């Protein structure tokens, strides 16, 4: 690793101040599970590092049945997947958090880091976007809250300014008669990166016959975690049948914008999106009808 200056501010305001005053070439260090390998092997050489480790206001999870879930950005993947409220009300978030790296990785990696690292294959992100999560960003002139889908703009790219920090992720209270699921395809059982992944979040009407709400977010098939809006439109208002699901799965495959690389071809990725979308929609409808 090259040399760098190292700062450990105690508050978000101090961290923002540091980023503003030290200027370009800095990097925020959260869990470090991607930044550290990047600094060691991928030519990333920040002039200075602002570590978030001493900022206690960046850790914690709270849930309220009315206002929903608030996860501080420094919350670790392991803490997220063990939180009773997340497990009970947002199991899809647990599904994603459990897929990130090894158990050792999950004890370091943070939710804010997974978002701001902006990997198209980030496993914690599709569930959050499917749940219409928002993120609060702090900068020199205050804070703003934006849809998570607007934070990630490309591989490794976010809409955050260099002196802004993602501090919290919010998810609304669960909709009645709704379910959400995330799955990815990897050729190995453990420690792999998604070839393609699909997060779905659907709601049925009171008779449990029609889709009244649908969000689908695709993983690793576009430069960003991608809302499959064509597939969503194919669901809302339609009967919750195998035919509808098949049409939505086809639309999701059409929504995908995959590339071919060493992990899989674009065609294979589209096929995966089709299959995984159908599976996740079916599982979600079944779960709603079973009252789970």
């Amino acid at each position: 690793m090259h040399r760098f200056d190292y700062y450990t501010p105690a508050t978000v305001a101090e961290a923002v101040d540091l980023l503003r005053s030290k200027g370009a070439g800095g990097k925020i260090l959260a869990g470090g599970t991607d930044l550290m390998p990047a600094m060691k092997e991928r030519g990333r050489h920040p002039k200075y590092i602002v570590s978030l480790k001493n900022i206690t206001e960046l850790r914690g999870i709270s849930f309220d049945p009315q206002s929903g879930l608030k996860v501080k950005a420094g919350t670790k993947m392991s803490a997220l997947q063990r939180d009773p409220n997340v497990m009970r009300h947002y199991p899809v978030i647990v599904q994603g958090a459990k897929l990130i790296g090894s158990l050792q990785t999950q004890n370091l990696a943070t939710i804010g880091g997974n978002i701001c690292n902006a990997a198209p294959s980030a496993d914690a992100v599709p569930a959050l976007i499917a749940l219409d999560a928002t993120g609060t960003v702090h900068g020199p002139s205050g804070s703003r809250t934006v849809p998570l889908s607007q934070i990630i703009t490309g591989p490794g790219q976010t809409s955050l300014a260099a002196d802004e920090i993602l501090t919290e992720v919010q998810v609304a209270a669960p909709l009645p008669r709704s379910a959400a699921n995330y799955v990815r395809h990897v050729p190995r059982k453990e420690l792999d990166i998604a070839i393609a992944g699909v997060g779905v979040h659907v709601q049925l009407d009171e008779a449990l016959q029609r889709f009244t709400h649908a969000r689908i977010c695709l993983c690793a098939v576009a430069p960003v975690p991608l809302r499959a809006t064509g597939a969503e439109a194919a669901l809302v208002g339609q009967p919750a049948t195998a035919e509808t699901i098949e049409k939505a799965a086809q639309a999701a495959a059409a929504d995908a914008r995959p590339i071919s690389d060493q992990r899989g071809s674009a065609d294979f990725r589209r096929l995966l999106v089709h299959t995984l979308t159908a599976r996740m929609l079916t599982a979600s409808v079944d779960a709603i009808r079973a009252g789970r």
Partner: protein
Amino acid sequence: MAKQSFTLQVNGGTYQVFAEPNKCLHDAIRDDIGFTGTKEGCGTGDCGACTIWLDGAPVTSCLVLVGEAEGAQITTIEGLATDGVLHPLQQAFVEHHGMQCGYCIPGMLMSAAALLRDNPTANEDEIRHGIAGNLCRCTGYTKIVDAIKSVAQA
């Protein structure tokens, strides 16, 4: 960038490390403090050889800067045995011949010990998942899993 002083709590002791901030935790533990049981493998968080505990949670110490570990209780392989008596998992690895070259074993044991601490009756699937972040190129894992199972069932 000048050297700075970092205070680390390792295996119950307090140590001052005078280092540049780009030093990784495993180097501080090995070279500055002298607990050489922790091994560096890949250096990029893939192999798990350098697994230690930060406040009881297994992490790959190659992905942790020395400064990031300040304030945490660090436990290394040297901290598993109590008063010279091997941890039951260490004894089981001896009895089941759970190592060949042995390089991965300190990290493997730190993962296994955390697993059984949190889930004392872990079954084989849970054991294999629990050590999935620790690569072994010699054993094929059979003896390692046997050793952990023998303690899980006890």
